[in-house]
């Protein structure tokens, strides 16, 4: 019988945030992503350097040490293309430290869209291109080819699994949301409906105990070990999926998150039957126990676990409509800078910043937003969209400039 194991998967990403880009910039300056001159809160470079110091550097050092000293430790990562771009430009040592992790042979990298976009729900052709771009960048940067797919924000549906199987992926990950699982446990390998594709489901309670609630209840390694044990019972795997930046950025070093992590990894592998699996190893080791169907899209965000964190309000819907309406004009321009800016504007974070719900989920959105209000996020984004239209107008000279 195979060992009981933890599948730890961390998501690494930084968006290119749009600076306070006004109507007075529109049609004049096209530097939506680069204006840190007024406000360090929206300057991508300052943010990246800050998070590199607080999270990427110390966490990668810790991960490497754990891999070197603990032969059972394994981890999976998804690293967005826009993250890799920023790291290469502003913190090359961070890329090297990720390469060192991958070179141990016990770190798996997952496939996703290069631009951390929701393109699957708006344009399949664009989605395919972004997945291919990401694959090429991962090969080039790390010398490996991802085989398991994760979609942006873990946004998953049966259609996505069908797509992934058709495109040769060997597995896929999703949220283990109660209304979908009903009486079933997330702690097994499943098969995606209408396919033979293995599906891993996030154990959101145990994941969120670290990702969102670590600071709230002074969690100790021993206590967490007990919780994981209780959850796992005689089942196969516990899927702990979360943002990489949980370590050091969402939960600051002062909370003791690094010590906790270090101590928990050792305590887990010190138990007789406790081990770690990469995503692919988990799939290879454990037979699927049943089929899971998600006809409607399920994500890992907010209490609704649907796409409403990104497309639930009118501001978000309009912004998404505008950006995807540009597709054919942008692509046929064959203008690399234009295409690149358009893709950066597809990053899901832009729409997340336009969230207006308030209450508990709103607090989480506010924490991640560089802007003081969702309305400002919308205005800056809209002006950038209009500038894109202006550039297309100049490029194609079609005499059609919409609003």
């Amino acid at each position, binding site marked *: 019988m195979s060992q009981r194991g933890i599948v730890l998967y961390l998501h690494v990403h930084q968006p290119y945030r749009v600076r306070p880009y006004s109507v007075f910039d529109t*049609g004049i300056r096209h530097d939506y992503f680069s204006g840190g001159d007024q406000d360090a809160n929206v300057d991508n470079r300052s943010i990246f350097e800050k998070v590199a110091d607080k999270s990427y550097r110390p966490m990668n050092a810790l991960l490497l040490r754990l891999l070197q000293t603990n032969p059972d430790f394994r981890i999976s990562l998804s690293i967005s293309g826009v993250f890799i771009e920023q790291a290469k430009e502003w913190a090359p040592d961070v890329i090297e430290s990720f390469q060192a992790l991958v070179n141990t042979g016990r770190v798996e990298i997952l496939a996703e869209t290069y631009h951390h976009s929701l393109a699957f729900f708006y344009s399949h052709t664009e989605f395919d291109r972004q997945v291919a771009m990401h694959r090429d960048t991962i090969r080039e940067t790390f010398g490996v080819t991802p085989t398991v797919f994760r979609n942006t924000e873990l946004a998953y549906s049966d259609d996505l699994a069908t797509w992934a199987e058709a495109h040769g992926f060997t597995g896929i990950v999703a949220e283990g949301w109660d209304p979908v699982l009903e009486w079933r446990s997330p702690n097994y390998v499943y098969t995606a409906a209408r396919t033979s594709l293995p599906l891993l489901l996030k154990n959101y309670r145990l994941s969120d105990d670290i990702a969102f609630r670590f600071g709230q209840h002074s969690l100790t390694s021993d206590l967490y070990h007990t919780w994981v044990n209780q959850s796992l019972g005689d089942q196969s795997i516990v899927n702990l999926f979360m943002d990489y930046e949980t370590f050091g950025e969402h939960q600051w070093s002062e909370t003791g998150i690094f010590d906790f992590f270090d101590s928990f990894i050792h305590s887990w592998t010190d138990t007789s039957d406790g081990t770690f699996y990469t995503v692919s190893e988990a799939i290879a080791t454990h037979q699927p126990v049943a089929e899971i169907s998600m006809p409607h899209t399920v994500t890992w965000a907010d209490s609704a676990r649907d796409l409403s964190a990104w497309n639930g309000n009118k*501001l978000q819907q309009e912004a998404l409509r505008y950006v995807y309406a540009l597709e054919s004009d942008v692509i046929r321009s064959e203008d690399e800078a234009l295409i690149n800016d358009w893709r950066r504007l597809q990053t899901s974070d832009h729409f997340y910043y336009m969230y207006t719900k308030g209450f508990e989920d709103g607090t989480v959105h506010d924490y991640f937003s560089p802007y003081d209000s969702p*309305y400002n996020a*919308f*205005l800056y984004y809209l002006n950038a969209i209009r500038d894109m239209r202006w550039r297309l107008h100049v490029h194609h000279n079609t005499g059609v*400039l919409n609003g």
Partner: protein
Amino acid sequence: MLGWELPPHNSGGLGVACYHMAKALAHSGVDIDFVVPYQAEHPDIDFMNIRAATPVTPLERYGLGAYDTSTVYRRLSEADADELHDMRGVQKRYVQFVEYLLEEDSSPYDAIHAHDWLTIEAGIRARELHNIPLIVHVHATEFDRSGLADSGGNPLIHEIEYQGLMMADRIIAVSNATKNIIVQRYNIPADKIDVVHNAFDPASMDASYSYDLRTYAYLETLREEGYTIVTTITRFTAQKGLTHLMQAAARASERYDRLAFLFAGDGEQRDELIQLAAELGIADKVFFTGFIRGKKWRDAYSVGDIFVMSSVSEPFGLTALEAAHHGNALILTNQSGVAEVLDNIYRYDFWDIDALADRIVAIASSDALKSSLKENVKKEYARISWHDVAIRCQQIYTTTSQGAIA
């Protein structure tokens, strides 16, 4: 004359109107002491005496409030800083200063001309103590400021306005619309009120100004593509009726697709307006500038083809004349005072979204209509001068004094 602000320390149109009115009166030979609630230099004013009622700076005239007391105490005594903490404190000191002024000054005043509720209490006091005729000049009532809310706005302000209008020997309203509000909402007899419309002095606009096409480069590109730019420049408050304008924008865009709407300004309704634009599916046709002044402010007039004043209630509305000066066709609500003095404009009732949409589409789709509205309205505002306003005011001073003696 009792005022609350003068350029360059004004936050709005009240200071501008007071400045031009006083200047024209002074040129007609009237000696004016103008009381302001703050201490500051007024470099462009040598035609009258400016009297500072309190030691606070212009920014502090609505009360010291949250200003850092450590710096305030360096300038003011502790007792002063305490008393001037809020606007009521500043107003109280303003009244005391006017009392002092009337006792000290050997040559009595012929009339007290008080502008709006902020100075009315001082005017009432002057009339009580020295029986000097009180003329209350109404630039805006609390009804206007609250967007004609049934509540009538802030009850304390309403009460002060009511007292002042009752005690005044004469009332000057800046429009018939304002006169009607004073009659209907404050129950003041109509024959106690004179309507004297404000004027516009084109010379007051910096003559060296030239329009910079690059300020609103994107909108200019739209114009090249045949778009018509509809502009409004205002505070985003309920009084200005901007949600109606947004709805009309959507209605008009259904029928004529080359329209863009410039909402220049800021205020408490901004987020609501952004939300509404998105709900109506026209967010990309609407441009928000935020608060603008100086060149960006004038260029906002210049980039426009049509200027809309959508106010639910606008006692006068100087911005419409400024817009006309910069070559806009005007669409004004019937509830805007300035609409009473112009003929070559479109009017509509503030709630009539369809009527506004119709007029926007009509102007946008007819070059002849657009150019004749633009050109003809320019001839009209040239006829309205501050000199005429001064003559009317002097007549009112004279008749009111005689009445008071009799």
